[in-house]
């Protein structure tokens, strides 16, 4: 583990990733301390000072009701990270169980589970999430549900493929010979061998969940105001281009920075741990 960390940190690109993620995470965690205008995360209006270009003290300008954009982006990171983590915590176990069961048990179970997975995978991700959000009220919790619904099949496919390969390995056959239960073989023998791939994919996915969630809220199907959200900031600001460019450019770059960071780190982890493509 230590060695892995050393490898990751010695590569300039993955080091950059670690730094970016550290920045994003710490601004989310310490937003209350870092943000110049902490109250601007909520329903504050200042019509004397709205839609202003970047200047001191609003280094990224102000939004359409006069709130400091920089402060809001910091708080938006907080929401994005929570969303990303919760989605993965829900989607990964679900996908893993389905993939393990389908791969190990095989037969009809495999057919039903993997075809169900295919059904979900054959609806374009955003379309599926949108259909679900169309049904539900746009809230943070429902947004998480919608993204989770489109995410678990990727893990079930990943784990399924690994399980198929692993179940022919000697150690699995050995466990079966000494009469280990299916559950034991699946979760104790095969699952640990899926971990490197899962962890790599999760790191990469944290960025992509943030990306998809921002796409959903760009379409108006995400977190509701006054809660700051990067996707809806871009969507609202888009009407004011090109004059009020700061309204879209900074939140857009904020998404880019976060996802880029996770991608850099994910890449490095993949080199070290191995894992899926």
């Amino acid at each position, binding site marked *: 583990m230590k060695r892995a960390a050393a490898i990751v940190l010695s590569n300039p*690109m993955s080091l950059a990733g670690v730094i970016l993620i550290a920045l994003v995470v710490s601004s989310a965690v310490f937003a209350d301390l870092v943000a110049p205008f902490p109250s601007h995360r909520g329903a504050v209006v200042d019509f004397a000072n709205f839609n202003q270009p970047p200047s001191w003290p609003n280094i990224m300008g102000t939004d359409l009701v006069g709130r400091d954009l920089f402060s809001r982006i910091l708080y938006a990171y907080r929401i994005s990270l929570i969303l990303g983590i919760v989605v993965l915590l829900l989607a990964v176990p679900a996908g893993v169980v389905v993939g393990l069961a389908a791969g190990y048990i095989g037969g009809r179970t495999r057919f039903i589970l993997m*075809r*169900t997975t*295919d*059904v*979900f*995978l*054959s*609806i*374009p*991700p*955003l*379309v599926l999430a*949108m*259909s*679900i959000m*169309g*049904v539900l009220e746009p809230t943070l919790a429902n947004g998480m549900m919608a993204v989770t619904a489109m995410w678990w099949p990727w893990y079930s496919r990943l784990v399924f*493929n690994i399980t*198929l390969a692993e179940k022919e390995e000697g150690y699995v056959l050995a466990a079966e010979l000494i009469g280990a239960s299916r559950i034991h073989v699946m979760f104790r023998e095969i699952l640990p061998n899926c971990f490197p791939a899962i962890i790599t994919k999760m790191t990469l996915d944290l*960025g992509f969940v943030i*990306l*998809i969630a*921002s*796409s959903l809220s*760009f*379409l*108006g199907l995400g977190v509701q105001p006054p809660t700051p959200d990067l*996707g809806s900031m*871009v*969507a609202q600001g*888009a009407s004011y*281009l*090109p004059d009020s*460019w700061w309204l*879209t*450019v900074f939140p*857009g770059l904020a*998404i*880019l920075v976060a*996802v*880029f960071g996770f*991608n*850099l780190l994910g*890449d490095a982890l993949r080199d070290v741990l191995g894992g899926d*493509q």
Partner: protein
Amino acid sequence: MRLERNMRSVCKLLAQRLAISLLVLAGVSVLVFAIARIIPGDPARIALGPNATAEQVQKLREQLHLDRPIWTQYGYFVRDLAEGDLGISLYTNRPVTTDIAQFLPATLELILVAGIFMIGFGLPLGIVSARYRGRAVDHIIRIVSLLGVSAPSFVWAVILMLLFAFFLPLFPIAGRISTDFEIDRATGFLLIDTLLVANYAAFGNALWHIVLPAFALALSGIGQAARLTRANMIETYGRPYIEMARSYGFPEWKIASRYAFRPSIIPSLTILGLDFAAMLGNAFLVEAIFAWPGLSRYGVTVILRKDLNAIVGTVLIISAAFLIANLIVDLLIAFLNPRIRYGQGSK
């Protein structure tokens, strides 16, 4: 003899994949139908508008079979679907099939051009990057392609629009073609229609309109394709037969194109199929920004309007398009890779 055996196994694979695709499509229809029916809000009331009376609403509900149990509704839906009828859109007051026929070509055209960009830029970048592994060029390409993957297409759409339509007005910012051209839309694909009537100025104009949106849509795919190609090529470069080819003094370009590239394109192709799905979804975002009158925009509107028939129709068509694309990719792989061809299908 060998060709015949090839054809037979490919046909068998095709039949197998087709059967599975149809099964999946049936599953999709159930899923989407269920989602569309549990949408809160009465579609009949929404369709009739704010001033309709209760009787009018009730009448429309009966016409749409909304008063029947959901499985009966699904039965009606399947019966109509078999006749090629997806019902009337409550939003445009037209048959859903008419709407889709009008809007789908615009979206497909956008996605196809984006796909061409993805391959046309992504593969060469990946090859160059792998060939010059560890050099400055490799680092730059890696960073750029990772950046491409790291922002949603709507952010790229906004940035490209800002740079190349606003500040540096090189490209138009909206629409498919300038209003000065009146083209008979035989296929709905403007790039084809303009060529059919041999109006090359109009073709150029349509091409000029599609560049920015297609590029915004393609950027993450370009990054993805470049990264994959690079990784796979590096792997093949490490194989002994490349060393052998080198030692025989084969020219470097020949090694790259024939021995390193071909084996590495197969994994890229699988991902291409998946990226196609992502593009169908991301087109929602790009079409909104570039005022592209395609199916995705229609999809967003009908979802917001709770237009049941149109939602089901749109999602079904998009899923079918995705399945067909994957089918084609599978077949391509089967042709390219003998191992998969003679084995029992790919993973």
